[in-house]
């Protein structure tokens, strides 16, 4: 029997991997870094919580619905994004975080500062899911999302996305509809964040707007940036590292925001491709260690 403590860590690791991947998709495919991804997690969490608590919908329907709601807001953001330069778009995503939290706090429907409690534990075969089962569900979802993102990236859609990231104008001359593909990246990314939000809500069983503030967005960004934006490998490894490490190194927990902030500064200044990105000191070092070029293919795709 694995102690409950490890279930918690594993569940949070899974949620963080999803969030980090979600940033990775957006950065890698729409060339856009979101500074407000906690907002989409909040939308997913609230949608899922309200559907199950207020409308008594099953978790198994609520979770896809949460992804859908989040993706719809993502679609809206994607449309707005087409009009903005990249750094101002980043600020806009940050603004979205504050607006969403503001609405959740002030609008009468979302439980205001108290949030939503008594969120039901998901049912499986007529019984409440145990912690172990829930962790397994999270792992399965991570595997599913990683597979989906991997398929997307190797399909012609992924090719078009990479073309846009490399040289937007040229991709357009080759017939790629930039707007369509960028918006699609926003939709996929925010749907993943919505799923993460839903998993979070049904794990903690109560949520408040303060869970999803701007500092969380910064933490999510740090996960992806540390690992390396874009690739699947980077965000996944970054999320695992930054979720498990603080459990063993107390000082990271005590100085959490200081650590995350400095990590962002240092990684962006000295390893903008991330620790596990293309030609980072870590991947290069591993390559030298194992020799094989093909073993670690340093493709930041």
């Amino acid at each position, binding site marked *: 029997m694995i102690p409950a403590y490890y279930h918690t860590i594993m569940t949070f690791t899974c949620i963080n991997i999803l969030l980090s991947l979600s940033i990775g998709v957006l950065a890698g495919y729409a060339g856009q870094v979101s500074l407000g991804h906690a907002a989409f997690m909040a939308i997913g969490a609230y949608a899922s919580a309200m559907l199950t608590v207020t409308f008594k919908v099953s978790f198994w329907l609520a979770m896809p619905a949460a992804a859908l709601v989040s993706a719809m807001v993502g679609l809206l953001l994607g449309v707005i994004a087409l009009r903005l330069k990249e750094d101002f778009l980043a600020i806009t995503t940050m603004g979205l975080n504050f607006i969403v939290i503001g609405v959740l706090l002030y609008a009468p429907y979302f439980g205001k500062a108290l949030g939503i409690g008594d969120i039901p534990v998901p049912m499986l075969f007529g019984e409440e899911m145990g912690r172990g089962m829930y962790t397994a569900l999270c792992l399965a979802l991570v595997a599913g999302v990683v597979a989906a993102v991997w*398929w997307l990236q190797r*399909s012609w859609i992924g090719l078009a996305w990479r*073309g846009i990231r*490399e040289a937007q104008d040229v991709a357009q*001359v*080759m017939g*790629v509809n*930039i707007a369509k593909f960028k918006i*699609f990246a926003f939709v996929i990314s925010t749907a993943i964040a919505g799923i993460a939000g839903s998993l979070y809500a049904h794990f903690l069983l109560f949520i408040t707007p303060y869970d999803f503030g701007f500092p969380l967005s910064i933490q999510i960004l740090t996960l992806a940036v540390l690992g390396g934006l874009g690739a699947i490998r980077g965000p996944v490894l970054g999320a695992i590292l930054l979720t498990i490490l603080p459990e063993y190194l107390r000082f990271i927990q005590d100085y959490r925001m200081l650590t995350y902030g400095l990590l962002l500064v240092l990684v962006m200044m000295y390893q903008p491709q991330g620790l596990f990105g293309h030609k980072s000191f870590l991947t290069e070092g591993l390559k030298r260690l194992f020799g094989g070029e093909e073993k670690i293919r340093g493709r930041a795709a």
Partner: protein
Amino acid sequence: MDVLLEIQGLSKNFGGLKALSNVDITLKPKEILGVIGPNGAGKTTLFNCINGLYRPDSGVIRFEGRPIQALGPDRIARLGIARTFQNIELFANMRTMENIMLGRHVHMRTGIFRGAAMWGRRSFAGREERAHRLTVETIIDLLGLQAVRDKLVGGLPYGTQKLVELARALALEPRLLLLDEPCAGMTAEEKQDMIFWIKDLQDELGVTILLIEHDMRMVMDISDRILAINFGRPIALGAPEAVRRHPDVLEAYLGKQERREPAA
């Protein structure tokens, strides 16, 4: 239909500068039209107008009878117009194969969601992808790019990059191909090969080509007709020999007298 591309009264200004004024071009299918003129004469601007990167200030561009001057570059690409760039514009961090594959983009018929659901080789999307790969392989063979097939294009020699760019444009299976200085910066040998391929494209694939080139010998050699422009205005259009002897062309190139008029 006898006319593939028809341009009437095309003008484009930048601030007060007339980059193109009142250009008329009629291009017949399978024709190679060379565009010559001194630097800054407006040749690349002409290309940018045709493929939608610039929106002309006035004038009509008809492709197969359909006005295209208001369409975006991606729509125009879908109609069958491809181009290469004066300064190579490749996706440097992608492999040769991937660059060319992206040229197939307009032929990808599966929608975003069906394309995403590409489970296995026998699915519709899987079959489609294999068909595209086959086309790309054909182009790679045609241009002799087998050796660099899986290399990142950013690291390839200049001449090879030019070829990859041509291959990518061909992958679109264009009916009109805009080549912006395909031989610039090439060695004499590479130039010979390029001339050979361009002729091949015309003869075997029936591609219509609009070609900007500085190398006079090459452009005279390869073109069916030649258009000379200077300060954005067409100054001569006709058979290569005739254009070369045209007094305005000689003047533009040799600069007998400065005829620089203020941009009004």
